[in-house]
């Protein structure tokens, strides 16, 4: 019986901490969400704004090339089904405008939540008869960036309903869950302390509206999952696998969180 008392008080303490965390997170959510570019330096914002200087546009150009390239046993290109390419620089495909705003979505056939990368690989399997592209490969990043680029400036349109609520709630839980040796959750930096300074960096609100992004630290383009991996390594947690269910759940939650922010792909960050 005596051992029950400390356990009981410990659980009360945990509940109190959870309550205070919730109270904090409600307080910190003031005003509309601010894109990561708001927290970036003027030089980085200028680099992102100028399409001829933005290094992410090289991946978009690569994606444009792959869009027109026949692949798989069907020897069909993306353009074969979707639309012919309009010859502007950078290329615009009117039929693909707004497509990226709907992701992550529930795939009608598999009933599971997929992101843009997942859709590209499903398309490859179903319509092109091609092997899936590896996560973080230059090809998949290029195609994703090219498709997302078509919706640049448009806000994301993700609604939470009974088909994706379970995944959304898992993402919300992961967002609040402490992890790693630092024992920090996403919420501690990107919600409660957004806008403050961490060493030489401004902490952003951690929105997902610019992915895939060109990070100067990476010297290349990377997906949201790669960025989440960086965050997990930062708090000394064991990262999830790219394309894993955990990251997809977080991606859905982050997309919902960034509601109203226009897509900036390819964004540039430090």
């Amino acid at each position, binding site marked *: 019986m005596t051992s029950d008392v400390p356990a009981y008080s410990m659980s009360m303490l945990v509940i109190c901490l959870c309550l205070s965390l919730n109270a904090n997170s409600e307080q910190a959510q003031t005003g509309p969400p601010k894109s990561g570019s708001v927290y970036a330096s003027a030089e980085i914002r200028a680099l992102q704004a100028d399409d*001829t*200087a933005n*290094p992410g*546009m*090289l*991946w978009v*150009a*690569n994606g444009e*090339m792959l869009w027109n390239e026949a692949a798989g046993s069907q020897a069909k290109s993306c353009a074969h089904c979707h639309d012919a390419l309009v010859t502007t620089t950078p290329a615009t495909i009117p039929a693909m405008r707004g497509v990226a705003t709907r992701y992550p979505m529930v795939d009608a056939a598999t009933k599971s939540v997929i992101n843009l990368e997942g859709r590209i690989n499903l398309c490859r399997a179903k319509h092109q008869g091609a092997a899936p592209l590896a996560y973080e490969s230059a090809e998949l990043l290029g195609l994703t960036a090219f498709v997302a680029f078509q919706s640049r400036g448009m806000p994301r349109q993700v609604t939470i309903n009974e088909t994706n609520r379970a995944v959304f709630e898992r993402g919300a839980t992961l967002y609040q869950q402490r992890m790693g040796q630092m024992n920090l959750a996403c919420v501690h930096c990107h919600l409660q302390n957004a806008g403050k300074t961490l060493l030489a960096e401004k902490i952003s609100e951690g929105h997902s509206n610019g992915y895939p992004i060109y990070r100067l630290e990476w*010297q*290349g383009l990377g997906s949201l999952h790669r960025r989440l991996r960086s965050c997990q390594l930062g708090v000394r947690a064991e990262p999830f696998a790219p394309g894993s269910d955990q990251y997809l759940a977080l991606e859905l939650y982050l997309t919902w969180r960034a509601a109203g922010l226009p897509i900036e792909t390819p964004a540039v960050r430090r």
Partner: protein
Amino acid sequence: MVARADLPAEAKRGAVVPVRIAILHAMETGYRFDVNGRSIPKNVINTLTCRYLGESIFRAEMGSGMSANPSVHFYFVAERTGDLEFEWIDDAGERGSHRAKIRVVT
């Protein structure tokens, strides 16, 4: 290898025209190691050239100090309508090329 060249579509004869070219390349320095601790061999674009009206107008020799996805800016004098032909080669022997058109008006 993918590249993007940026220059005005049209220029007056005799005008000094700015050109920018960005090339998608990792520019591996040779100082990095992979996850297994093996050294990643140096592989950078060592030579970039540009020809205009059959003449070489620009040449750059680059080393491991250049960033990934190098962006090279230079100027040339527009004389006649024609193509700028960029060519480059990296340490692995892979070649790339890009072509950009300029129309010259009087």
